[in-house]
Each structure stands twice: as structure tokens, then as C-alpha cells.
């Protein structure tokens, strides 16, 4: 089964096509780097894959099912810009809520385990309002991984992270792929993403300008892809 199957996907904002004729298949257990300028359609595509929006035309299959299907959503982990944490709840309360929503058998137990795993045990009962950016990031990652998702969708996860946090996240994602999970991440940070990626997709003004495996060429000269297939990043 493919992790993702898109066939002639279009998304319109009024009459303006934000995504045009997007078609590709992504096998499981790989890491896809979704590249493109601002406004190219990366976030729109990720939102459709996460089930936050419906495509205007075409078909989308995520883990073999419609993205809005609840069984599919239970196996997908999402990490967006905003980190999706409730400031007025504690770290444990945040994780317990999502553990419940994702149908985990022991929500509090799972929440407790993950709080420790991301090194926030000391602040487990503190309100997220008091957390630093780095702590929030760690908690958000815990929330995304909490339910052992088979597919991870990350929208610009390296933004505003210091070097250490970037490396930690890269290690986590590398492990995830090693465990057989599929990772899709959109990013401006070419180098960090290309180091992880096995597959690359480049969106230019809503069209899929390039889709294929990541080559060593790309790793040595990340901007090559943009020069060859699209506009400068």
C-alpha cells in the first residue's frame, strides 16, 4: 500500500487554482521533502493531506483511505506552524487530551510516558503558558508522535529552532523512517530536509515541477533543484 496517492488534484480559491493537477504516489517508510516558494501551494497540499481541507477536484488517498476518514486520521500525526498546544492547560493535560482523542487505551499513562521521553518530566504539571519555545516544540513533537502514527505530516518543522533542536528533530524523524513510518515535511530549510529525505517534490505555482528520489546532486547543491525546475528559492 502506498502512503499517499494523489490523482489530478486541484484546489481552488474562488477561480484561482492554488494546486493544479497534482499527481504522485509515495510508498511507505520513506521521507518526502516538499519544497517550493511561499505561495507555491505547500501548506495547501499539507492541509489537504491532514484532512483540514478538501480538494476541489481529483482524488486523494492517505494510507489507502480518504483523509477525512476517522480511521485514517487515527494513524496520522500532524505538526503545523502553531504547535497546537493549549496555553492554559498543563503539559500532561495537553497530551492526555490528544491521547483520548486518538483513542489510546491508557491516555494518562501514554501522556506520562511521552512527557518523560521528551525530557519535560519536571514541568509535566506546569501550564504550557510558562514554557519556552524549545519546551513547546518538544511537547508538540510528543503530541504528534503520541499515538504511534504511521504517517507524519510536518509543516515547516525546523522554523525558529536552534541547531541542537534541529538535530534532535532530525534524529527523531530518521528513527521514525527507520521504524517504517512515512514522513512528509515541507520546508524552506533545504539542507536539513534534504539530509533526511529519500524523495523530493517541488511545487512551483501550484504545479508539481519535480517529483522523484533525492539524489546526491541535490544534497551537494541544494539550490540546484530550484535552478533546474523552478524559480530561485
Amino acid at each position, binding site marked *: 500500500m502506498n502512503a499517499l496517492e494523489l490523482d489530478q488534484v486541484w484546489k481552488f480559491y474562488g477561480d484561482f487554482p492554488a494546486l493544479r493537477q497534482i499527481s504522485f504516489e509515495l510508498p*511507505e*517508510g*520513506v521521507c518526502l521533502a516538499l519544497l517550493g516558494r511561499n505561495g507555491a501551494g505547500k501548506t495547501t497540499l499539507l*492541509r489537504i493531506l*491532514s*484532512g*483540514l*481541507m*478538501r480538494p476541489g477536484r481529483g482524488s486523494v488517498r492517505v494510507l489507502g483511505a480518504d483523509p*477525512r476518514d*476517522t*480511521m485514517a*486520521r*487515527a494513524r*496520522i500525526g*500532524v505538526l*503545523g*506552524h*502553531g*504547535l*497546537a*498546544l*493549549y*496555553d*492554559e*492547560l498543563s503539559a500532561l*493535560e495537553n497530551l492526555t*487530551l*490528544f491521547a*483520548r*482523542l*486518538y*483513542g*489510546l*487505551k491508557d491516555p494518562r499513562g501514554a501522556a506520562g510516558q511521552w512527557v518523560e521521553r521528551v525530557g519535560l518530566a519536571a514541568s509535566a504539571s506546569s501550564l504550557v503558558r510558562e514554557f519556552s519555545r524549545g519546551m513547546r516544540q518538544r511537547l508538540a513533537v510528543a*503530541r504528534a508522535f503520541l*499515538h*504511534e*502514527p*504511521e504517517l507524519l505530516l510536518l509543516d515547516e518543522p525546523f522554523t525558529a529552532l536552534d541547531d541542537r533542536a534541529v538535530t534532535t528533530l532530525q534524529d527523531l524523524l530518521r*528513527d521514525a*523512517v*527507520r*521504524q*517504517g*513510518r512515512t514522513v512528509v515535511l515541507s520546508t524552506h530549510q533545504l539542507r536539513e530536509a534534504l539530509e533526511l529525505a529519500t524523495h523530493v517534490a517541488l511545487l512551483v505555482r501550484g504545479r508539481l515541477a519535480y517529483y522523484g528520489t533525492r539524489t546526491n546532486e541535490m544534497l551537494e547543491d541544494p539550490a540546484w533543484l530550484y535552478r533546474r525546475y523552478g524559480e530561485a528559492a
Partner: protein
Amino acid sequence: MKAAGTQAETAPRTTARAQPGFLGGAVAIAAKDLRSELRTKEALNASLAFSVVILLLFSFAFDPTAEETRALAGGLLWLVFAFAGALILTRSFARELPNDCLDALIAAPISAPALYLGKAVANWLLLMAVELVSLVVFGIFYNAPWTRRFWPLVGVIALGTWALTVVGTLFSALTVNLRLRELMLPLLVYPVLIPALLAAVQLSGPLALGEPLASDMMVWLRLLAGFDLIFTALALTLAETALVG
């Protein structure tokens, strides 16, 4: 399901896991909303303060001991409930906007109707709390013996509040991303709610003054119950459309 040829530390779970189910999801959301609100008390305090102020102002504007004013009891109560309610209802989905929490909820495997219902129930409970306190204040300022018909009155208020909540919570979802949302929500909700408000006022008037309901008033009870049923069904049906673009 593992990538060919790799050593997996922990294989991803592919067995079917317990789904939260409709009710479980709704309860989790309701509990979260209540916990959030009780901790910050922003909307609750604003709502309570607003209702007490309106009741006070009315008793200065209209003589609270006069017979005519007592005849306005039902209308006054529901004006207060409707205005104070708007404060709580706007916050309902607006509280999910910081940090993009709404996205995480919609992406989670909870159906849109369950998400909506959880929020509606939480709003209903918060509103009922504000209304009960308002009733106490009303009883004091207007010397109204509202405890005489306590359970019928609470029943009517529960039904009327559900009408307000059902429509208000859905419109809160609809207007969550719009500018001027605090103004837009009441302007959209109140006209739709007119039949229910009419019924609630007719029923609450006598009950709040401790008097029994005449038999020809039962038509209002049927109207209110019917309104609640129809709009609950409509809201559950349209919840997904309202939340997912």
C-alpha cells in the same frame, strides 16, 4: 509494513486501536473546554458581570416593584440570558485559534459532529451556571418568588438555553476566522433564535413569578422542544461542512 531490509526498533502499531467513539470524543472536548474556562474564567466573569449589570440597569430604568414591570419578567430574563450568552458562545471556537489548536482538533480522529457536540454541551453548562446566578440576582432585585416553580422553570430555561447554544455554537464555528466575529455572532444568532426566544419568554414569564402555566401555554413548550430537535439535527448534519473547507 516495514521498509524492506531495515531493523525496526519498535514496529509501528498496525493493529486496530480503540477509536474514541462519538461520545468519548465529545466528552473529552467538553471536559477540556470546561477545564480551560474554569481555569481562566475570562468568558464566565464577563458574562456574569454583564448579566448583573443589565439586571441592575433595568431596575433603575423601570420600577421593579410595579405590576407592569413584573409582567416583563420573562422578557427581561431572556434578554439578559441572550446577551450574556453571546459572550460565552463567541469564545467557544475562538479559544481554539491561538497556536492553531483548531487544526489539530479537526485533524484528530474525532468526527466534526462530535467536536461540535462536545463544545455545545460545555457551552450549555457554562450558560446554565451564569443563568442560575442571574436568577438569584433577579429574585433579589425584583422580589420574584422564582423558587416556587423551580423545576418547571429550570426545565424551560434548560430547553431555551439549549436552543441558544445549539445555534450559537455552530455559528461560532462558522465565524471563527472572520474579523468582527464578536459583533457578527449575535447579529446572526438572534434573528434565527426568535421563535425559541418567543416561546421561552412566554413560558418563563409566569414561572419566574411563581405562577403556574395556563393550559394554552403548552403550545410554546412544544414549539421550544421542536425547535431544539430540528436545529440540533441540522447542526449535527452541517457541522462537518461548517468546519472543513
